[in-house]
């Protein structure tokens, strides 16, 4: 069976076309990320109402929640890009997957760190063996595995393919890990602590959160494109069009 893909898909697969196209998109995404992040953080940190139980410490969710969402979608993107690279042998997809890996690992750390900072005043401990915390930690381990495997190969092409396979295996495992960890937690320490049940959020709380999530996604797009552009330049350094860019600068 042969699947026909739209033409832009093949165009995007060409490193040169990607470089030019992302160069045009980059300023727009940077502006959007800047505006959304500024609006979201000022609104969320200064103007959103206090939580009646947690006081001001709840405000860290304006960083924590977007980071956690992003850490998961970044893994999805990495695995899907890896699959595209394996199936259709598209070089650009591997470049995107590689750029996702290091960003994903850092954003997972950010989610864990902000979670710990929030956990200290709320639960009285930096770390608890809660299902969602553990699942995020495992996600971080999966990122570390992909990065370690990629850097262990000397040949870039084998490194790309091998880490694509590993991230696909991880993608199949993420839901299994998530549910097994949840079950383990409820089996063993369901009664130890209970996350204070969230009051239904009023709109003045969740609208800045939504803005922050969108801002994080735009920021992700900016970083991803920049990383991919640098990676493309390094990988295609012998191509004529890259030489021209180098000469121009």
């Amino acid at each position, binding site marked *: 069976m042969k699947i026909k893909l739209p033409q832009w898909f093949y165009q995007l697969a060409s490193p040169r076309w990607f470089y030019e196209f992302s160069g045009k998109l980059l300023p727009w995404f940077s502006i959007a990320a800047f505006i959304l992040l500024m609006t979201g953080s000022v609104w969320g940190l200064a103007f959103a109402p206090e939580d009646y139980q947690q006081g001001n410490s709840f405000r860290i969710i304006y960083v924590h929640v977007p980071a956690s969402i992003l850490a998961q979608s970044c893994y999805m993107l990495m695995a899907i890009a890896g699959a595209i690279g394996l199936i259709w042998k598209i070089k650009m997809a591997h470049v995107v997957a590689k750029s996702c890996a290091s960003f994903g690992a850092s954003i997972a750390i950010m989610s864990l760190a902000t979670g710990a900072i929030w956990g200290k005043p709320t639960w009285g401990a930096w770390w608890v063996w809660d299902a969602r915390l553990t699942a995020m930690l495992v996600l971080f*381990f999966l990122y570390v*595995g992909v990065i370690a*495997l990629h850097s262990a190969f000397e040949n870039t092409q*084998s490194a790309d393919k091998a880490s694509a*396979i590993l991230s696909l295996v991880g993608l199949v495992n993420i839901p299994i890990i998530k549910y097994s960890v949840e079950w*383990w937690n409820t089996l063993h320490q369901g009664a130890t602590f209970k996350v204070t049940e969230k009051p239904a959020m009023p709109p003045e709380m969740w609208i800045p959160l939504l803005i922050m999530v969108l801002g994080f996604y735009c920021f992700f797009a900016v970083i991803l494109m920049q990383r991919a552009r640098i990676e493309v330049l390094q990988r295609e350094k012998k191509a004529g069009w890259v030489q021209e860019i180098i000469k121009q600068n």
Partner: protein
Amino acid sequence: MNFFIAAVRRELILALRRRSDIVNPLAFFLMVAVMFPLAVSPEPKFLAQVAPGVIWVAALLACLLSADGIFRSDFDDGSLEQILVSPQPLVLVVLAKVLSHWIISGFCLALMSPLLAMMLFLPSEGLGALILSLLLGTPTLSLLGAIGAGLTVGLRKGGILISLLILPLYIPVLIFGAGTVQAGAMGLPIAGYLALLGALLVLSMMLAPFAIAAALKISVRG
């Protein structure tokens, strides 16, 4: 099917001629379990409580360490290349290799586990659960370990890397495996746990051989 049996036979003969491959993981299994009473507390009551987890972690580490060698010698002497170019489907050859790895690691670990259970004062009600959970859980460990072995076989430094890749994937098996033993030791029904371990085994048996085959192709052909 003939070549499947032949492949399993070849692996088992090779393992029998190099007995250290069989004995080393078992010795490692025993030694890791001995470390816990020395490091934490030799008190029977405490040991009985942690025994399910300790035995399962030790079994998991023993499987992980032996997984590194699944394809190593075949890669070094070039027979892996011959397997890749042979007309037989690679997925089945891979499955045969994993099966024989399980026979010499997981199966033997399950047979040896009552000894550890006794040393760690696991309540006798948990003994059946321990053996059954190891029999059902370790094949999944072998399958997942083979993915890591396939990905790293072409690299000079396999050892630590393979643990980084594979340990996170072992977590569900560990949770359900240790859970089975804990439930068994408390006299609770274990059928649900065993069903979950079986489900993990079926799923990994379906998907892992393809990942292993793809990984081997990358490691050998680049």
